[in-house]
């Protein structure tokens, strides 16, 4: 899980059975003490692997929306909630309409399942390894090739015991983050990255190829929020280059976030 705190923005991404939405109320109170007012909210997630294990207020999307509606100020009048392609849950709320035409910054959220078992094994601690999580995390970053995805970023990594891995990469005002659950039967990895440049002008394609090669997943979903609108073509080219085939593509407009394009990919065997 990860937390990013900017002067005017906070991003929390948590897995497992965490109760993420319960952070809203205390955050709004602390922000008000600093003279800050909430102007926008975006909540996203994929389909849970174990939905029946999720606690309130995350037992289903309707409940999550109700909780959000009850805890957000009325000033956020532009609201939208959608499940894209029966998988990607998006809720946005804003006090103004965002013009995505001039916004070339985009966020890419990648979810991967059925990781290659040989590669996933690299995210297990070595038997008898008593190094702290930070030390074991650095080792995993090195041996998996994660450090090469964006060599310019400063990486903060952690290996969990007996398995699992999280990292945040920071480069100027942009972040990237990876989280891995490597256990066979429900292996999962996520990658999130903030990019810029019309049409994914920077390294989007190369970055995604490297990510796919680190995990070699059987299924991958990619959600792009914002940007110039053409990034999805780079995603398709990069992911198909490493043996995954596009199965679906959906797009929707959100007043608080701009355009969201959601693509699903799978290997031939799926």
């Amino acid at each position, binding site marked *: *899980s990860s*937390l*990013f*705190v*900017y*002067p*005017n*923005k*906070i*991003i*929390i*991404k*948590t*897995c*497992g059975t*965490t109760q993420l939405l*319960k*952070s*809203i*109320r*205390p*955050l709004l109170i*602390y*922000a008000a003490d*600093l*003279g*800050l*007012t909430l*102007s926008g*909210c*975006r*909540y996203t*997630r*994929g*389909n849970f*692997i*174990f939905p*029946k*294990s*999720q606690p309130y207020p*995350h037992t289903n999307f309707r409940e999550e929306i109700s909780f959000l509606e009850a805890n957000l100020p009325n000033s956020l009048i532009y609201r939208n909630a959608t499940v894209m392609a029966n998988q990607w849950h998006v809720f946005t709320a804003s006090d103004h309409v965002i013009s995505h035409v001039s916004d070339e910054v985009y966020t890419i959220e990648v979810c991967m*399942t059925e990781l290659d078992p040989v590669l996933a094994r690299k995210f297990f601690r070595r038997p008898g390894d008593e190094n702290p*999580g930070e030390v074991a995390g650095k080792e995993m970053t090195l041996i998996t090739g994660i450090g090469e995805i964006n060599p310019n970023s400063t990486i903060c990594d*952690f290996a*969990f015991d007996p398995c*699992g891995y*999280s990292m*945040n990469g*920071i480069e*100027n005002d942009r*972040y990237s983050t990876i*989280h891995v*659950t490597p*256990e066979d*039967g*429900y*292996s*999962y*990895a*996520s990658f999130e990255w903030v990019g810029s440049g019309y049409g994914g002008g920077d390294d989007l394609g190369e970055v995604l190829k490297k990510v796919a090669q680190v995990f070699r997943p059987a299924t991958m979903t990619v959600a792009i929020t914002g940007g110039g609108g053409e990034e999805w073509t780079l995603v398709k080219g990069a992911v198909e280059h490493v043996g995954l085939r596009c199965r679906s593509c959906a797009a929707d407009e959100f007043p608080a976030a701009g355009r969201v394009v959601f693509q699903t990919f799978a290997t031939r065997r799926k």
Partner: protein
Amino acid sequence: MAVSGFEGFEKRLELQFSGDDPSAEGHGLGLRWLGFESLEKVLHAVQCTVVSAVANHYFDSYVLSE
């Protein structure tokens, strides 16, 4: 609760704020003024703790448990 493995799929929340004055005391730090204790209280509500952190001129980044 169903018997299961560890849930991988994340929930992601992004909150945008306005009102930060770069010319005021704190030089536009805004939410970065929040003390670590305050962040810990927020994370307690979520059921996470900080396990590692790094920051630069622009923002603070924390790796969390779970």
